[in-house]
């Protein structure tokens, strides 16, 4: 309990809130790594997921690969990629991409699959091209599920990005690993609290976004 209090007084110390190794800098680094990992993963996973959902082909393969990717230990991946790519940002980002892909993939294909097949059939029968069906019917109607895929990926990555500091990068993980080395547990705890708080804030914000972007007609029905 006293360590928790010490952690909070560590956080309350105004000197921690400025400078190149202050909390705001680390927070921004943390968000930057998260964004990098999720965006790269989205560029890979979302088109594939939409395609799988639209055509219904390759679903089994995607589910199997996602399951396998989920089972990979991220710390192990970072170590492995670190040995391969060296110290720096490349290895952890690559690991975060692998971490984010399953959620994004599942979000994208389940978004498309959630649309009533009769609605899709009608759109096709009216003379929409396959691209128009995807962009004007399936994506708008499946948007909440697509965003929930992003939410899961972001929350997962944001909670894991602290591992980037394990091989010499910034981010909120710096406080945790520094605290660990110095046996400064209040600092470690403070770092963890910051990561947890960030994950919760992002989760709530994205849930609100999901609600806001739900298709209007369907939401009223």
């Amino acid at each position, binding site marked *: 309990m006293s360590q928790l209090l010490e952690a909070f007084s560590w956080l309350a110390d105004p000197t921690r809130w400025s400078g190149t190794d202050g909390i705001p800098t680390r927070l921004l680094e943390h968000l930057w790594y998260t964004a990098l990992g999720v965006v790269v993963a989205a560029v890979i996973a979302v088109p594939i997921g939409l395609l799988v959902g639209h055509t219904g082909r390759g679903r089994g393969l995607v589910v199997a690969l996602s399951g396998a990717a989920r089972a990979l230990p991220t710390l192990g991946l970072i170590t492995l990629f670190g040995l391969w790519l060296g110290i720096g940002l490349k290895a952890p980002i690559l690991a975060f991409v692998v971490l984010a892909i399953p959620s994004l993939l599942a979000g994208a294909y389940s978004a498309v699959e959630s649309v009533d097949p009769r609605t899709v059939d009608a*759109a*096709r*029968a*009216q003379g*929409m091209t396959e691209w128009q069906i995807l962009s004007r019917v399936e994506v708008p109607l499946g948007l909440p599920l697509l965003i929930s895929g992003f939410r899961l990926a972001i929350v997962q990555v944001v909670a894991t990005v602290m591992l980037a500091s394990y091989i010499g990068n910034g981010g909120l993980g710096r406080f945790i690993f520094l605290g660990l080395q110095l046996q400064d547990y209040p600092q470690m705890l403070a770092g963890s609290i910051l990561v947890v708080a960030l994950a919760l804030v992002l989760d709530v914000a994205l849930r609100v976004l999901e609600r806001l972007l739900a298709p209007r*007609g369907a939401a009223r029905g």
Partner: protein
Amino acid sequence: MIRFDHVGKTYPGGTTAVEDFSLTIDSHASVVLVGTSGSGKTTLMRMVNRMVDPTSGRVLIDDEDVAGVDPVKLRRSIGYVMQASGLLPHRTVAENVATVPLLEGVSRRRSRSRALALLEMVGLDHRLGDRYPSQLSGGQQQRVGVARALASDPNILLMDEPFGAVDPIVRAELQKELLRLQSELGKTILFVTHDIDEAFLIGEQVVILRPGGEIAQQGTPAEILADPADDFVESFVGSGVGKRALHVDEVSGQQVVLDAGDRPVGVLREGSRS
């Protein structure tokens, strides 16, 4: 004119939906394919706009094989009304009606005013145009479906059990409305149903199908009732049951068909209808 020329459809699994079907539908005629599930009626109808491609034979529209027409272009030129209205839930009623004109690049304003006019034409208040489909009753949704199918002023209208999901009273209303529309518009209508009463009401020509798309009998409702081809047709149309003991009476210049209980069941029209 729509012509089915020895078409067949066998799915990759080996199931045969249609064996060998030939039929010619004249322009401006309304033809009803009627049969139980498994008769291939919907499959046949969907061959016209290439929602299904036949595995043998050809479908021709005005002597042009549809297999050579780009399916997207073909579908935009043919009205299609389906059972569950198939409206886009995230778009307003007016936007739904304007689907094809908007795809074809007609301006938003023009598409909208056309959509509102079409709503009135199918018997809906144009103020419903700004609602979402989920805010409409089932019957209203079906009317919107009809309006949407008419939006590009197609020559051909395909109707796949369009009134199958609404209650009997609304259904009767919609059927009457369709007959009125058809008398004004004179489209070529291919209508699919499992309901023989509906078939006789809507169709100038009725085609009764056996499983596998085999034609049991085709003709006008009167011809079929007068001379059912076999036991299958007889039991399908319910001859011998009291409601098929029909007689004709003239009411305000129309040949009204009445059943044994003097209940009107439809209107007989003779000769050309366009």
